[in-house]
């Protein structure tokens, strides 16, 4: 028995068969594909799992890094290094959490580590549409990538990242994941974690971020450099607006709220334009620490560093440099729009210990981190003459009343042209005692002295005072043609301030580990390097520089304390210095252009150290010593004072008031011209 079937037409039947064949094939092929996919997926999971990084538990452990703290000499904390300030979610503005979720992963609370549809879409675009790459990473995947993987773009890395994301989801709550994410995410400008970012960019805590600020911050992680608001504010704002629109699209804010937020331009925190140290002193100190202990200890060791810096003096130093350079800008006639501006540097050292109290390495740290105070070697000009005079007193038995003649000088130099040094004012004053010669910085006399004593003796004195830069044994060393740093000059002049005792300059008093155990301590050691009596004679002559010589602007500006110093100006007016000291504080100031450019005022006259650097020194030292008792330099026991005529070096005749007289300190065995004649 059979049943009747209506047989379709042969051609139709053939087509139907073909169709059904196709359906079957598709089903079986699909099944095979699914099975193969499952099998290869499992294989990959098992294969790659052994090589995956271990996950720390709890996840928050990843952001616990002890911070190194640097303190000033008065105990004030200056900076923390390697700090990662983590905060719980309830101390983060809800606007920021909403903004970051809307931007990075609005389905964060729904998925288990992967947003499958977004991933498929991303895969489709990346594989099919050439030249386009669609990201589909969830917050968990981003966390996995940031914590464990490099930024190389490979499918293996991507798959591993995905697996780690699955594990993170499996072993942590969504709150824990979000907490870890917002505390480790990079916002640029050295800010890692939302709290630090809020402090760096807006000078407030993460809890206090309002919607426009929160949206701006949430837009940064996509490309922290390109959207850095300090550099590209408008670009960062456009990105912020995209974040706000996205928040509106996913229903986290209303259209009105978005529009209102878009109208607001968040004000950036100006005092800290990024998370660099902001201090030349701290840069120098960190470099020293790294050399001593290595980067790991400095940035991850949680050490406590007690530095020598005096925050009060440092603040005065910055202010004095700022004011002084603005004055110099005006003298030169620099307009606000000019980019090429003169620079300045200042180093101040406690003469009694060698502790560095203040360092300013340039006019604006954020515009140039180059520390001119410690790294820029410049010619000192006449600033080197005290070393020359000391060498002459020591080696040739000269003294402040020794008479020499200011006259044209030609010194033959082997193998090169004769040296013919000139005075700054191109005039010659004839006979004069050495005290006057140093006071007025007479170059021809300095040249004659160096010819007598030899350049080797001068470099030897400079080196014994702590100058470490290479010095050339050439006659012109007498006029400061060797390059040294302001730090070295300040340090070397402290030897004059202490009448010949050298204290090594230092930046760090003590270093402790996280438990307060001392791992380094600086001990102040004294080393006598110069004869105290001769040094006193030099100091007396340098006092005269301030009283009536090339540094008299110090007194004109109202500085009344006992002080000594020396100006220095190079022949080309490229460098203008003033290094001076009181019995307790020695400070060196340099001014000049970074490039090979002269300091010339608007009348086309060269600017000397007395005009540019000495006022900065005066401004700083007056403020720095404001509350200190006034002290004079101690007089060695074998010193006697004599009044002498500046041209003859002899005691002045009584009643003759027409001659210029100076008081000079002499050692007991030293004689004046009259004594010699007798």
């Amino acid at each position, binding site marked *: 028995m059979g049943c009747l079937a209506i047989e379709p037409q042969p051609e139709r039947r053939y087509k139907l068969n073909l169709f059904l064949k196709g359906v079957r094939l598709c*089903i079986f092929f699909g099944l095979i594909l699914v099975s193969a996919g499952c099998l290869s997926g499992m294989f990959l999971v098992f294969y790659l799992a052994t090589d995956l990084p271990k*996950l720390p538990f709890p996840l928050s452990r990843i952001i616990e890094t002890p911070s190194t703290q640097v303190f000033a000499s008065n105990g004030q904390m200056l900076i923390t290094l390697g700090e990662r300030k983590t905060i719980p979610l309830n101390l983060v503005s809800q606007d920021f959490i909403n903004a970051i979720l809307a931007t990075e992963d609005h389905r964060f609370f729904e998925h288990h580590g992967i947003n499958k549809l977004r991933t498929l879409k991303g895969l489709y675009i990346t594989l099919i549409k050439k030249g386009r790459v669609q990201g589909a990473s969830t917050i968990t995947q981003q966390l996995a990538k940031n914590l464990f993987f490099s930024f190389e773009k490979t499918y293996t890395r991507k798959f591993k990242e995905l697996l780690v994301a699955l*594990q993170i989801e499996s072993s942590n709550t969504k709150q824990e994941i979000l907490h870890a994410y917002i505390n480790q995410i990079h916002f640029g400008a050295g800010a890692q974690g939302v709290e630090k970012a809020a402090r760096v960019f807006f000078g407030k805590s993460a809890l206090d971020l309002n919607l426009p600020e929160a949206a701006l911050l949430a837009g940064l992680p996509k490309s922290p450099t390109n959207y850095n608001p300090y550099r590209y504010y408008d670009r960062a704002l456009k990105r912020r607006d995209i974040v706000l629109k996205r928040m509106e699209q996913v229903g986290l804010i209303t259209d009105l709220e978005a529009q209102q937020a878009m109208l607001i331009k968040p004000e950036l925190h100006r005092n800290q334009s990024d998370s660099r140290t902001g201090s030349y002193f701290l840069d120098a100190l960190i470099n020293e620490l790294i050399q001593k202990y290595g980067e790991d*200890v400095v940035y991850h060791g949680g050490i406590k560093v007690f530095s020598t810096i005096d925050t009060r003096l440092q603040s005065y130093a910055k202010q004095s440099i700022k004011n002084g350079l603005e004055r110099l800008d005006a003298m030169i006639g620099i307009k606000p729009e000019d980019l090429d501006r003169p620079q300045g540097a200042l180093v101040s050292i406690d003469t009694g*210990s060698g502790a560095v109290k203040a360092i300013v390495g340039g006019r604006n740290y954020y515009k140039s981190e180059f520390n001119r105070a410690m790294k820029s070697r410049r010619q000192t000009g006449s600033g080197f003459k005290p070393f020359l005079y000391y060498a002459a007193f020591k080696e040739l038995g000269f003294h402040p009343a020794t008479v020499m003649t200011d006259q044209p000088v030609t010194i033959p130099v082997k193998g090169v042209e004769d040296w013919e040094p000139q005075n700054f004012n191109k005039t010659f004053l004839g006979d004069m005692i050495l005290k006057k010669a140093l006071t007025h910085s007479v170059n021809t006399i300095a040249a004659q002295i160096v010819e007598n004593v030899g350049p080797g003796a001068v470099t030897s004195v400079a080196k014994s005072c702590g100058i470490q830069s290479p010095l050339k044994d050439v006659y012109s060393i007498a006029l400061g043609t060797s390059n040294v740093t302001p730090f070295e000059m300040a340090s070397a002049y402290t030897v004059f301030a202490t009448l010949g005792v050298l204290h090594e300059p230092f930046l760090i008093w003590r270093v402790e580990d996280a438990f307060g155990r001392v791992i380094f301590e600086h*001990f102040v*050691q004294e080393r006598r390097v110069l004869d105290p009596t001769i040094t006193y004679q030099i100091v007396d002559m340098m006092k005269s520089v301030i009283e009536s010589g090339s540094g008299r602007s110090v007194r004109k500006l109202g500085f009344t304390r006992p002080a000594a110093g020396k100006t220095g100006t190079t022949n080309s007016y490229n460098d203008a210095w003033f290094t001076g000291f009181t019995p307790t504080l020695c400070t060196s100031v340099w001014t000049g252009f970074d490039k090979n450019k002269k300091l010339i005022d608007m009348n086309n006259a060269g600017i000397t150290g007395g005009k540019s650097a000495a006022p900065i020194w005066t401004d700083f030292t007056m403020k720095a010593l404001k509350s200190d008792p006034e002290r004079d330099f101690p007089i060695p026991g074998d010193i006697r004072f004599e009044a002498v005529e500046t041209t003859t070096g002899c005691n002045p005749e009584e009643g003759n008031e027409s001659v210029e007289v100076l008081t000079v300190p002499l050692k007991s065995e030293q004689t004046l011209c009259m004594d010699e004649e007798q």
Partner: protein
Amino acid sequence: MIRQWYEPQNFSEWLRRTFSYLNIAVIILTAIFVFSEFRFDWFENLVGSYLSSTNKLRPETGAIWEAGKQTSNAHEYLNQIISKKEDSRQNVHEATTFFDLASNLLPGDWVTLEKYQFKTLYLTLEKSVALKIIEPAQLIWILNGSSLDRIFCEGITGGIKIYFIDSENRVIRQLELKKEDIFEIEHGIDPITGNLSDMEGFQGRVYPAKKFFDAIFKLPSDIIPDLMVNPEILLKQDGKMINIGIWNEVENGYIKLGFEFEEADGKKIIFIKGREWAVWQLSLNLKGDTN
């Protein structure tokens, strides 16, 4: 029984075969498989749980572990410094002589020395040799009269440096002691076997013991302690003293004296030091030129 596969002959056969119970079951199962994954994320959970179970076995690699390693490296380095210091302190605490102190501090190591500890070490020395470390009067002033806060001891190559430091971390006084000098101060120069007359430095200056001591006794009594600043080394010897030699060089204000002893197993030379001027006075006596 094996059934031979044949191609469906008609449409209904095709339909029947395509939508067979087995196929429909497979399709439904597959669909359930796929859709349940989308709905319940069981695959992610499964893989996540599996990976969590193998977490302990996996390596600590990746950026965050590297940062962690930097922290542990830093701690390890700091702990090394501290434990080295602790070891030094322990060793120094146990030191009973300056030589022990110098032997226990390696170059670069440093430790703070208590005042009483320095005093104890100093007082263990014979009075005559203690002054070679530091004059007693100076030490009394530093320990009892000055603003001394701490004594800091630092190991250097071949010895130690001792700093007396005030409360402002200023060095009041600094001593640099070479290990061999300390040993020499504490124990005298190592004895050697042999004859004085064979030693070049003593040639022409070797005297019989009787003549030497006769010359000593002619000296004013206040000179004799300076001539033999550490006589206890000689008093410890058992043999018979036969010859004494005077070295031909001065070292830091002292002249080495060699005492030749005859012992059961041969001759032995013991060295001590005498102050230069006292030895010079003695030499005059020995030469008979007392004027």
